[in-house]
């Protein structure tokens, strides 16, 4: 029986964000924006969605009067990502 793919992760931008964050310890919003090529507004909405389900931690601070947003994947996020990849492997019989 195939596992259902996590609807939170099964979206292009959210999956791209999670794939980036699983590879690093933490990354700034600007880094994610540059790598995904998404608009700031769209990225902001998707980051918020991932934060709401506790897949990522978001820390906002001011550095030299400029806002700086740092994102970091959580334990829950890692587990969800691993489960998603396993489910994908089942579908693709990898």
């Amino acid at each position, binding site marked *: 029986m195939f596992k259902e*793919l996590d609807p939170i992760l*099964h*979206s*292009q*931008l*959210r*999956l*791209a964000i999670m*794939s*980036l964050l*699983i*590879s*690093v*310890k*933490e*990354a*700034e919003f*600007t*880094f994610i924006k540059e*790598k*995904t*090529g*998404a608009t700031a507004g*769209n990225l902001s*909405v*998707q980051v918020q969605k991932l934060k709401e389900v506790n897949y990522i931690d978001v820390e906002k601070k001011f*550095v*030299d009067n400029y806002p700086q947003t740092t994102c970091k994947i959580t334990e829950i996020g890692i587990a969800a990502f691993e489960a998603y*990849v396993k489910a*994908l492997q089942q*579908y*693709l019989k*990898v």
Partner: protein
Amino acid sequence: MNNEKQLSQQESLRLITEMIQKAKGSHFHENGTSAILWGAVVGFCGIMSFAQYTWKFSIGFDVWILTFLALIPQIFIAIKEKKNKIVKTHEQAVLDAVWVVYGISIFAVIIYMNTVPNASVELLAKDHIQLLKKDTLTGEVKPWKPFVLSATSILMIIYAFPTLVTGLARKFKPMIIGGIFCYGFFMASLFTSSVYDALLSGFAGICNWFIPGIILRNRYNKAKKALHV
């Protein structure tokens, strides 16, 4: 990137691979400023010390003081580099921990080098011993401060190094605390005789490895039980 696009399973897998590759290829590159700074300062101090010993002259102050002055630009460099970093990898987190603990250890060795001679004189005085040195040419006798190697103290710095690095890199508090305690025992060992150094070494082993090990074992057993429930 369009968020609403429906992904096929193949597209999902491709996207994951692509993003992981992008993250891998974009690590922050050190510009080498710190390495140049410390290489130049330590290189200069070493060569200048050699020159003073060899050609018998003095510049009027201990040249190694420059290494303390180099800490000032280092602080500014570190702050600037931290500001410019937009991503931190797991590897960088471990390397940061290695350099922080290296800094602490160097500081500990400097304290060791400056404390041991005076502490040795005091410990010997308690046993009613004073070491003297005699100039065989003039016959002049002067008190002598021996540099007695305290191998146990040095070992405690080496004990603490990997524990503190692991604790900082993994954010595992028992190892951070164990490592800090180990440096504390090292400090105490500078003022104690070798008998008490051995005791402190035992305490270091308990704080550094035994207690964190017990905590790790409990966590492991809990995780194992949870898997089998």
